[in-house]
């Protein structure tokens, strides 16, 4: 009976794994991977929503009357490509951060920022 919701639970599990990675890992690349997992879980959610029991793919053919819902397919199709474009943008930002700070660990970066701002304040006082 409750098996009807199994897909949703898998989606939530994946989503939470993604969220956990984003929060708990300091490595920026790892964070982006976490975001990707989160993103894919949303895709899976939409696609499993579109499914109709006993239906076929939404390509019109003779003798077939039941199709799965095409609208979520369209949304997700474009979202995947947009997702990879934005992920690429994130990766380039990480690369630039690595060049500027010499590290992609969140803690190191924050540490360096603290040092910098402390130095600046000292400069102001002098």
């Amino acid at each position: 009976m409750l098996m009807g919701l199994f897909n949703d639970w898998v989606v939530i599990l994946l989503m939470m794994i993604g969220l956990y990675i984003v929060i708990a890992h300091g490595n920026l690349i790892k964070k982006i991977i976490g975001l990707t997992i989160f993103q894919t879980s949303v895709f899976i959610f939409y696609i499993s929503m579109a499914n109709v029991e006993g239906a076929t793919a939404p390509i019109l053919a003779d003798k077939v009357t039941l199709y799965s819902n095409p609208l979520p397919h369209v949304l997700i199709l474009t979202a995947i490509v947009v997702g990879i474009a934005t992920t690429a943008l994130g990766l380039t930002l990480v690369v630039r951060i690595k060049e500027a700070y010499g590290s992609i660990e969140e803690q190191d970066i924050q540490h360096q920022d603290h040092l910098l701002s402390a130095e600046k304040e000292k400069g102001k006082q002098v």
Partner: protein
Amino acid sequence: MLVAVATIRMKDLFATIMLVGIYGLLSASFFVAMDAVDVAFTEAAVGAGISTLLMLVAITMTGRSENTTRHKPLLALVVVVITGGLLIYGTLDMPYFGAKDAPIHTHVAPRYINDSKQEIGVQNIVTSVLASYRAFDTLGEVVVIFTAGIGVLALLSVAHPARQNEKSDKIESYNDSMHKQHLVVRIVAKMLIPFILLFALYVQFHGDFGPGGGFQAGVIFAAAIILYTMLFGINTARRVINQSFIQLIAATGVLLYASVGVVSMLNGGNFLDYNVLSLNPIAGQHLGILLIELGVGCTVASVMTIIFFNLADRREMQLSIKKHRKKDKDSTPC
């Protein structure tokens, strides 16, 4: 299936990225099982192919090991568990999987399924919704992709040709030595690349009848170019495909898309209403969808190529700088 992969991936390192690739492929097969063939197509090309590649290029620049200390893992776990619990509580009201009377299937979807044959005349409903009913949405998405491409360009483009010329000989000799090692792969890839390109074109123009269309075709096309770049080096690839040329194509794709809309407005219809493009509404729809998919394909393919080229270029530049530094260090003691 998905759960298994997802839990392994908590481990660190280079292997995670490989796992992401596998995950992409698995979710693609899941989409096939859910009758979403178009989506599966895209996910297989993007999730298993391009995203893995881009991440690999990125970690060659940023280092592959991860600092193992987590900050506040317990707090994160608590947040995650609470959010997850709330979401699961929310799902209890959801319609069951595969139910025919779920609200999502009763609103606009019946119109797409029942009337698109008469209104658009395209067999693949996904294509007709993508390129005709919701063409304005798709225009927005294409613009987002284009903007991401511009962002990458702005962040990474290497803008000192003078320095590059001076170094290019050394880089090339370095490349040659590296790429000669992969003789078998190179020959096989050389044979495959034309077919991949041909397949991309087929996917592009066959989107009306089967799964396919501009997004998928663009990604596959870009994958072929990226394969070539990986095997023969960025400099060879640049000689084949000019960077400013692809930038031009990326812009032309968006322009083509938008101008189809403007033309249909000039012909007396709404923005992106293709019925007026031709005397026969169905023929007009066909023409409009064809042009728009072409625009999408151009933009997606060239933006992906731009992104990869710039990342690879950065890497080449970093390598050459490192080499120079090493040489300087070596030469000073003498």
